[in-house]
């Protein structure tokens, strides 16, 4: 159960992020080395405006978080383990994609996400994921002119023509 209190903390984090992003943009813009040009408006005006907007909005979100109306005022149930599993699955795919190749890394991602959603049939999920990733691979690398990495399966797969 995520209560109003932790949601207010969440809102505060949002406010701090927006504020931080604004300060970061303003600072980076200030430090930007700009070649002297004759244009009326250089590349720094818009970043300054957007940075200033974010700073003001960050403060307003923080105000709303502590004194105003927040989202899901009645609280909202969030189940965190599946979120963690899916996020980890995506990281795993990033690390493995170019080593193992699209088919294996994609099949693995499919299995992990299905598991996170509570699917009980791990082997069936894995098989389905491999078939789906394999179909995408064939369609992309042979049908369309796009390249998904073959990885360690490269010796088994005919080079795209």
């Amino acid at each position, binding site marked *: 159960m995520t209560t109003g209190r932790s*949601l207010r903390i*969440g*809102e505060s*984090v*949002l406010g701090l992020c*927006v504020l931080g992003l604004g300060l970061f*943009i303003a600072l*980076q813009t200030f430090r*930007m080395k*700009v070649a002297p*040009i004759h*244009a*009326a*408006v*250089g*590349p720094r005006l*818009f*970043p300054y405006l*957007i940075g200033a*907007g*974010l700073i003001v*909005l*960050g403060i307003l*979100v923080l105000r*709303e978080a502590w004194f105003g*109306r*927040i*989202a*899901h005022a009645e609280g909202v*149930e*969030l*189940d965190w383990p*599946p*979120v963690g599993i*899916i*996020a980890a699955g*995506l990281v795993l*795919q*990033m690390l493995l*994609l*170019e080593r193992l190749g*699209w088919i294996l890394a*994609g099949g693995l*991602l*499919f*299995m992990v*996400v*299905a*598991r996170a*959603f*509570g*699917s009980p049939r791990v082997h069936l*999920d894995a098989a389905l*994921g491999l078939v*789906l990733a394999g179909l*995408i691979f064939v369609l*992309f690398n042979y049908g369309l002119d*796009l*390249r*998904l990495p073959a990885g360690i399966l490269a010796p088994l797969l005919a080079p795209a023509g």
Partner: protein
Amino acid sequence: METLAALGHGFAVALTPYNLLWALVGVTVGTAVGVLPGIGPALTVALLLPVTYNLDPTAAFIMFGGIYYGAMYGSSTTSILLNTPGESGSIVTAIDGHAMARQGRGAQALATAAIGSFIAGTIATIALTFVAPAMVRLALLFGPAEYFALMVLALTTVTAVLGNSLVRGLSSLFLGLALGLVGIDLQTGQARFTLGIPELLDGIDTVIVAVGLFAVGETLYVAARSRYETEELYALRGSIWLSREDWARSWKPWLRGTALGFPIGALPAGGTEIPTFLSYLLEKRLSKRPEEFGKGAIEAVAGPEAANNASVAGTMAPLLALGLPTSATAAIMLAAFQQYGLQPGPLLFESNPGLVWGLIASLYIGNALLLVLNLPLVGLWVRLLTIPKPWLYAGILLFATMGAYTLNNNVFDLILLWVIGLIGFGMRVLEVPVAPCIVGLILGPLAEQQFRRALAISQGDPSVFVTHPLALLLFAIAAVLLLTPAVLRYRQRRLAS
């Protein structure tokens, strides 16, 4: 007359077997993603961008238009049978549509939605045919100052009308504007906010942001909530035909929904939600049986479903004539134009009439195809709803990572996708609307260009933005839209105390 000749030429383009095939692909895919929860037209078009890179642009846009129309048809099925809106434009439909399904009148609800969508889509496409050239003539009067003002207005309305907190909407918008800053400045070649990462020199791709927010963020949110949501699918029973009474109660809401949907879609007022809500309220006000609303009134399905289709046709007008997206899907379609090196606007009507009018003509054809797909064949689409949730979302993420990777064949884009996906999850939990972020990302850099061009023409005199009457008017409308809710709330509070 000139318009009709152009439209005739458009039909000649759209009716070639090749383009007809892509229209059919578009409406079929559109209906499917409309039916499936968790995947919508904006995400689908974004995922297809890398795939269509080598496709003829006319065929690609015919397909995208079909997807956009089809999604509005398909989403009503999910709203009615599952009580989960397939798209945000069908939230209202779920109220009475699902009540009808519980009473065994699901087939009638689907029929009034499909026929209403067809009538609204056809009338609104006719309106688009004549409004788009008129908008082009208006656009010819526009200089950079007016374009900048128009973009500010579009950004304001997309933000002000979505969600229930202006501050949150603006935060989303400014996040999008900030992401749009990344990359090389087009006027001076200055690298901005690239943090020394060479992959960021070209900027952050709209596809990554859209897929991250809509696919990854949404999947994480559904995963977090899936234990607590129960869904009940109602089977279709009996005749799908509407009774004489159903027809009598449906036809006026269809027309009124169309009348609301098209203009609201065409004015930069953003999205399909507003006209559907307005249509629901209007039908309730006008009904002789307002007590039935919420318990399965057919008017409450007919009106909003007509409104959402009409508004989709409406959003095509400013997109084609001004290059101005007023919804997330339209924003992605603008990104598609950029991918092909095309700039929507008056020049496109001159230089590429085959594409513009072929697209408009194919919308007529697509609408007719959709009526066939969604009325006699609705049973097939209902089967899509029986795909187990784990496989549906696993598949969505598989396609999402494929779309992100194939943009540049680069793992860096997957890292970016992951980060933006987590941000999207946070936004979803805290009810920060994501559409302003997408529209801001794509319109921000364009607005900056117009702003600087305007000042270059005026030799640095910022008064151009107030001395041009059209620009001043547009700014004034934007200010009113932004300030009205705040003023109303202030007055309410004063009255309350």
